[in-house]
């Protein structure tokens, strides 16, 4: 059970990485076609939901972790920040307002890297 939950959690995290890479290309000046951004946004939606659901499931499934561990609460906080930034980037791109999209994307990228740091080091676990 644990192995499959971890696998699905990782697949969801890799979908988030795909979004980050695709939007990074746009932020660096690549003229990405609409279909690419559509796929990037769907990867973000599915990846975001997947990391949250399977992440919480993993925390509840394992005796060694508690839902209220500092690193899990920190990861949840970062997840909400990243999701908010991601939704904002999607709305702005859809509305043609690209002024702050690059800055918001790079902040989102740092937040996702922060999430990875928490998942690997698990401070306080």
């Amino acid at each position, binding site marked *: 059970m644990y192995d499959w939950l*971890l*696998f699905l959690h990782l697949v969801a995290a*890799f979908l988030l*990485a795909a979004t980050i*890479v*695709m939007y990074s290309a746009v932020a660096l000046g*690549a003229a990405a076609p609409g279909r690419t951004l559509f796929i990037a946004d769907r990867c973000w939606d599915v990846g975001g939901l997947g990391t949250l659901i399977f992440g919480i499931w993993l925390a509840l499934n394992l005796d060694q972790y508690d839902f209220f561990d500092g690193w899990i609460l920190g990861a949840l906080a970062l997840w909400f920040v990243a999701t908010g930034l991601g939704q904002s980037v999607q709305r702005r791109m859809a509305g043609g307002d690209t002024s702050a999209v690059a800055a918001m994307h790079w902040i989102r990228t740092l937040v996702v*890297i922060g999430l990875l740091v928490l998942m690997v*080091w698990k401070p306080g676990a």
Partner: protein
Amino acid sequence: MNLALFVHILGAMVLVGSLVLVATSLAARDVKLGYRTLLIGVLPGWIVMRGGAEWIAEKENVNDIDPTPAWVDIGYSVAEPTLLLIIIAAVCSGLAARRGTTGGLRTAALVLVGIMLVASFVAIWAMATKPT
């Protein structure tokens, strides 16, 4: 161990994310973006992922375990051929971008990227479930 694992996963995320971008670019007939992503994203991602894997293997003496665990074998047998496929896909898409064509070479690169994506998820499964 933690830093090596972080480097390994970060490289793998850049590798897989870049492969998705290459696949969507080639499918949308943007051969130039696909080619550039192979060189700027996929290849460095592979190097960082592979370097991180070797770092972990050395620290944990994984290669000294007899018999070698299946998940380690799967990892190696996915990673090594992937480099060859990256080079072939880069040559195909590079030639297609240079010639300004979107025919057979683009399709060949797209198929190779698809194979690499499937192989990557097999590797992720092996790393997560660690089959014996």
